[in-house]
């Protein structure tokens, strides 16, 4: 209980920091956002009057802390502002794009877990055999593979050559296949290595030998004793992998022209659409903090040592 509270408190602090950073980022911009935005919006150099009006309208004249306060107040009320272009409500925009990214992230994590756990276990159990070398080699290549290239390889193979899968967009399951493979396999590579090393480590533990000494068959030793403990760090890692997924989604979504938070962010960055940039970064940051909180709590439920001992991790 006290752990939960402590964890909640520190998450809140981090979340607060996330808002400060999100807000502060925008003030890094070298140019004058008002001018840039108006120029883009109007297709020509904005007049001074327009610039002044825009600044007043967007509250850009206030001192920065006040701007932050106002912004934070709005955010807490669920108002993320409006896009500089087209006056779209940022929250609505995010909610419109979010499902596609969630879909992609979910599918990728599923693929990753489905590949990584068996591969990592087999690799660890058959340590030093060719199975292990193949699995390790593959995952090493997977880790080293930029997913934007993998994406194009899949497009060339799966879409251009075979013509099986649609290459762009979102909506149906078929659209999900190539992007999810792209993102999922990269993540699987990382996870496989983790599962392997974690299992190898537990296989060295005395209790594994003790189980063998009790006369338990090898697969029982691995599944009932070693794997259970070995997968605990993997749980945390999957939580942390969400960061990888969200980061990878940016690129993969661009490669596959998938409307999602990634493409939204990239477009917004290029358009200097600050409210949208802030919205996406805030959403991503908050999600990440939240998911990490949840995986931590899950970890604490799964590992009796931690959940009952109440020790600090």
């Amino acid at each position, binding site marked *: 209980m006290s752990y939960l509270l402590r964890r909640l408190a520190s998450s809140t602090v981090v979340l607060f920091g996330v808002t400060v950073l999100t807000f502060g980022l925008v003030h890094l911009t070298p*140019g004058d956002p008002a*001018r*840039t*935005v108006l*120029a*883009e*919006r*109007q*297709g*020509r*150099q904005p*007049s001074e009057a*327009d610039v002044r009006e825009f600044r007043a309208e967007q509250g850009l004249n206030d001192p920065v802390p006040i701007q932050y306060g106002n912004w934070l107040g709005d955010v807490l009320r669920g108002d993320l502002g409006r*896009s500089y*272009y*087209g*006056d*779209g409500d940022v929250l609505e925009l995010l909610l*419109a794009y979010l499902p596609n990214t969630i879909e992609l992230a979910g599918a990728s994590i599923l693929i990753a877990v489905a590949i990584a756990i068996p591969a990592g276990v087999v690799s660890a159990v058959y340590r030093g055999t060719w199975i292990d070398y193949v699995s390790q080699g593959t995952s090493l290549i997977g880790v080293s593979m930029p997913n934007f290239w993998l994406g194009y390889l899949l*497009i060339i193979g799966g*879409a*251009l050559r075979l*013509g099986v899968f*649609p*290459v*762009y*967009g*979102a*909506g*149906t399951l*078929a*659209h999900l296949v190539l992007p999810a493979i792209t993102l999922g396999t990269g993540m699987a590579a990382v996870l496989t290595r983790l599962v392997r090393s974690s299992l190898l480590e537990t296989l060295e533990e005395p209790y594994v030998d003790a189980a063998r000494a009790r006369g338990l068959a090898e697969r029982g030793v691995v599944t009932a004793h070693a794997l259970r403990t070995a997968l605990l760090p993997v749980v945390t890692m999957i939580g942390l992998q969400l960061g990888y997924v969200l980061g990878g989604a940016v690129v993969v979504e661009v490669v596959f*022209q998938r*409307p999602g938070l990634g493409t939204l962010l990239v*477009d917004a*960055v*290029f*358009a*200097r*659409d600050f409210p949208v940039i802030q919205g996406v970064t805030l959403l991503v940051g908050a999600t990440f903090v939240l998911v990490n909180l949840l995986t931590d709590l899950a970890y604490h439920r799964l590992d009796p040592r931690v959940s009952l001992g109440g020790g600090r991790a």
Partner: protein
Amino acid sequence: LGDSDPSGDGESVTVARPQSSQDGEWDVYGGVIPYFTGVFEPLVGTNHEMEPEPLLATDWMREDEYTWRFDLREDVTFHNEAALTADTVVDSFQAIIDDRSATGWINVEPDGVSAIDDTTVEFETIEPFPSLPGTISHNYFGVVHPDTEADDDVAIGTGPFQLEERNGDDVTLAPYEDHWDTVPSVERLSFEVVSDATTRVTALEGDDVQVAIDPPRNTVSGLDSSAETATASQRTPRTCFGGVNIYKEPTDDATLRQALAYAIDQEQLVETILEGVGDPARGPISPEIPWSSHDDLPAFGPDHDRARDLVADSSYDGETLTILIDGSEPDDRNVAERLQYQFEEIGVDSEIRSVESAAFYETFTDGDAHVSIVTLGSNSAAADYLIRAMFHSEGSDNEQRYESEGTGVMNLGAEVDALIEEGYFAESLEDKREAYGEVQRRVVEEAVALPLYYVEYVLAHREAVSLPDLHPINPMTDYAHLEYEG
């Protein structure tokens, strides 16, 4: 997506289009992009010669220097069955002016649009404005019914298509059966944003879409030779050129600028990098624009010997020129790399600076770069604003530095300013052509703009789709006349 055919009747056509930088800002139009969708119609149309022609207005006349009157077509109804009246037109203009701050653009007084009677609308302009009809032929001025509501996806216009469904920038349209002129033959027309050009073509080949706007140039010949697909192309009023900052050292020296002009091989540029899509340019104004003087302009190079001599004669002293491009345009990037290479061949160093699209225009008008690769054209019959924006001291490209530092970017000075004004107020095309022609000649001779190519517009489509003639102004391409035997 992918199932382009929700109703299954085989008569649906999906058009894959690139994202335009202005997408997502069409609240006045119910969120529907007014270009090419055919949901809205302006009072004035533009014919293939880029001249105004009647559309929702059957006729117009100039009451006095400051006043224009337009007679409305009588049998027109909106998609909600309401009749087109002068009042709705006034409301519509008011909404658009408020939203887009277009006042400066069409030069009308703040409350300058009024209904004279049920079928007559009057415009009062700030200054004498001969090209008002051409100007309001722009898609921006499609007439919108006041009930239009972006939040509820209600977009009510008078055009041959009406909105069925909107999802962000993607729209699905159905024919408007009571259109005063044309009822489209396709059952359903969808526009989907696919920003990557290669992907658009892949989708076309897979029959996921039936029309793909702007396929990558290198795919055109392949698409043409395929039995399933074909392409159509049309030169546009847009020109890509290197805008030179004539107020920045060392490009303030006309000799150096001319040397640069001699270095460029437009022919080769078009044939290779552009894969033959486009025409070598000689001036900043596309021949599609009625008063273009392309044919009368001097052609420079390529003549590298001459160019080198000019460099030697110039004040150039080994400085590194900056070539500014919009990083999101792959063509510009290639063109810039080619320019850089050719400049190097005549002994002029340069570096490429690519900025994101949002910052490009500001960087350009700030005069930071020596040469900026810009593509400019007009989306309306009245292209006057184009030459004014580029070369008049108070034109939007120059005004910032002109106001702040008394210089500008591509403005040659008072004489040219006067010529532009003369053309601007000219009542006849002849007068216009004369004044503007002189401007173009000077600009080219002084190498203020390094002409590169006139932009050509390409549509790739399934063989089963028969396209109407393409309009020079590509956003005005008339999909209402498209036919499909799916």
